């Protein structure tokens, strides 16, 4: 940043490589954020539908509780 005189413009090949890398990163980031949005939506739905507190005997019938 402090020595602008040394910096030459990027060649076309370099620019292409840089752009390709950025595009790839953006794509992955987009996928992760999209998946997180879906996950948080699903969590919200489950939480809203859930009964207020876990009680014994709630939900699917299971085996005798052992600790």
């Amino acid at each position, binding site marked *: 940043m402090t020595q602008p005189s*040394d*910096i030459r413009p990027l060649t076309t090949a*370099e620019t292409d*490589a*840089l752009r390709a890398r950025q595009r790839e990163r953006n794509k992955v*980031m987009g996928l992760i954020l999209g998946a997180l949005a879906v*996950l948080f939506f699903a969590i919200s739905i489950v939480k809203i539908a859930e009964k207020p507190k876990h009680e014994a005997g709630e*939900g699917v019938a299971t*085996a005798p509780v052992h600790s």
Partner: protein
Amino acid sequence: MSTANPQALIMPADWRDFFALTKPGVMRLVIFTAVCGMLAAPGTIHPVLAFTAILCIAVGAGGAAALNQWWEADLDAVMKRTAKRPIPDGRMERSSARDFGFALSGLSVMTMGLAISWLAAGILAFSIFYYAYLYTVWLKPRTPQNIVIGGGAGAFPPLIGWIAVTGHITWMPVLLFLIIFMWTPPHFWALALFVQIDYSKAGIPMMPVVAGERSTRRQILAYAAVLLPLSMTPWFIGGTGMIYGLSALLLSGLFLWLSIKVGLRTSATGDGMKPEKRLFAYSIFYLFILFAMLVADRFATVYGIQA
């Protein structure tokens, strides 16, 4: 930022290198033991929440792994096994790994707290702190018992998985924690015996380098001997049935037998370290099957196949 060659194009790190930073290989065992802890726990959890809890445990472990590599980049650079990791290989800036690690850790703990419970989130946060700070920064460079303490970090996933289902701590998840805790030293020292040159070069006080092979072999044997009764304790206290109990006896018995072979032997140059390699390979198999049997035992009880 490098100023050595201003002509060099500084590329942003590849996303695959960020993925590599989370140590996907280690994560497999983390996910597996967390899933087993969850399936073996008494109670039910909504599949979406179960998935979220596992994801949080895995992402938290990935964050801790990234922080570990941020801190140890200099050490990784001098060891053959780790020199090709993203930071020592120059494919990523150190600060990127640090930011990535903190982001994953924070995100996983927050999500765990909001979706599951703050008890599970608190233990997850502590496990990340335990691995990234207590182990990596503080104890690993100081004591040859580092692996014993490091084992604690790997022992958290089933504990957190269990607590995500039940919402409170009982003896059973603590026992699962202790089993992995006791399993780690013989597992890792078997490996350390046949790759010890690497660690001495990096100045890490790994047991075989500091205390010598003889002492390391004896300690492998000691831990394996404790592991046998410990792995059967869930059966003794009535937390599991006979399917798990007998499996634990068989698996831990074989573990002890292979450890005796390693523990009572002195290696000669050029003998290929066969018993050590066999113990190391078996130790991985051991943990997978032991936890699988824990789940099988629980399902057998649920479906009335065993009392």
